């Protein structure tokens, strides 16, 4: 599992990318999906995830929809139009950042 410092800087990018690829997701689902896709190497902490979700909702990047599930309410998040644009920008920025880091640290990218 990677350190929380590494994940913190990319949390927004991960969440936006995941949400823009699916219709709507709720918090627990996002953490599970990331865990599953990265074979448990990236575990999103709830303490960082929810504040970010709320902030992005307030900024208009995400919209939330409350759905009754049994005896509780579940908030499903989906990306707005601006959110989709920002997701693309964030992914591109991160790609550029990664290439720079590879060059900076003299890494040889492994294929496969």
């Amino acid at each position, binding site marked *: 599992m990677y350190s929380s410092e590494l994940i913190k800087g990319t949390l927004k990018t991960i969440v936006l990318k995941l949400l823009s690829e699916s219709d709507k997701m709720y*918090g*627990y689902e996002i953490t599970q999906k990331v865990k599953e896709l990265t074979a448990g190497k990236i575990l999103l902490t*709830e*303490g960082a995830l*929810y*504040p970010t979700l709320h902030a992005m909702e307030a*900024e208009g990047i995400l919209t939330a929809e409350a759905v009754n*599930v049994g*005896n*509780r309410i579940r908030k499903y998040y989906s990306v707005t139009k601006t959110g989709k644009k920002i997701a693309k920008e964030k992914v591109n920025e991160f790609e550029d950042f990664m290439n720079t880091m590879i060059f900076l640290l003299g890494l040889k990218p492994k294929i496969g």
Partner: protein
Amino acid sequence: MFVLNDQQVSFILNDIRRNGIELEELQLNLLDHICCVIENEMPPEKSFEEFYRSILPRFFRHELREIQEETDLLLTFKHYYAMKKVMIISGTISATAFVLGSFFKVMHWPGASMLLVLGITIISFVFLPLLFVLKAKEVNATRNKMIVGLGSFFGMIMSLAILFKVMHWPGATIMWLTALGILFFLFLPIYFFTGVRNPDTKVNTMVSSILILVAGAMMFMLINLRPSHSIEYANFSANQHISQVYKYATEQNNQKYLNLISDSSNVKSNSELLKTSSNDLCNKVELIKSQIVAFVTDGNNPESEEELMRDLTGNYDAPTNVLFEKNSDPKAALKELKSAIGDFKILLKESFSKNDTILLNTNDVHKFGDPYDVVISWEKANYYQVPFENVMRNLTQLQLDIRIIEASCLK
């Protein structure tokens, strides 16, 4: 799969609330998340409460309310940037308007007043309040928040006071005194004693306090700056001269009335009418003058005319308070004076065929100053926010006009 019952769900919700999560949306999110974890990941041999206690630390480092704090921080951060942007834009606009406005004012170009009002209004009601909110967030101690608050409040009142003074609007003096009171008796003491206690800021605080004091005193002097003594004297001697001419004209006219007694009865009755009307009108004016003097001296008789003039030169508020309502409409006394002048002119026309347009002119006039294309009433042009010495002179001039016309009727 294990399914939580209502009781367990409300147990979790209450626990979340108790641990400092205030935002309802966040409560619901965490509740659902915890429920999902329990329902999906709880091993069958564990009890609900035991498992709940064991997973809770996943959500925080020290305590659960960290999530609430982090959310608050992110949410305010968003407003923070917007506020900072508005503050900088409003600051730039008001500074530009202010600089342009002062330049226009010096050049006597139209639009100066509008620019000054715009600049000072924005700085007082947008820039300074935002500065206060943003700065207050940066400091922690209540005392420092108070300093920031008082400082901003002082700035607001002071810029408004200067605006009122420059525009000759009523109330500038009281605003200015309030601003100074805040500066000298609240802001400075708190600022000084807070800073001086801390060895790191001691010298800085002392220097800044002295600068604030000196700047405050200089501003006070500047805003209460009187015209030079030569202008004051010119005003005083002009007023005195016109009063003497008025007295002289009155005496001359009285003498003429005495000489008329031997004339025919028709002339006599006409002249009696002229005498009473002229005297009535002059007395009306005299009454207004004494009302203004009584207002500023609280009914005590001034020691001398010279002293009265010296004390009241440049006083815009006293005559305005006596002669005008709060909404700047003229009060009854002034309205009655204007209509009495009208009646007097009718008498002159009908009984003496006098149709003078220069003396006793009460027509509306073009405003002398920015905005230039405005027509204002005779009352406002001569008496509204006009300095004491000029109001008194205008009134005496009116009396003299009456005597001159009266004399011209008494051939």
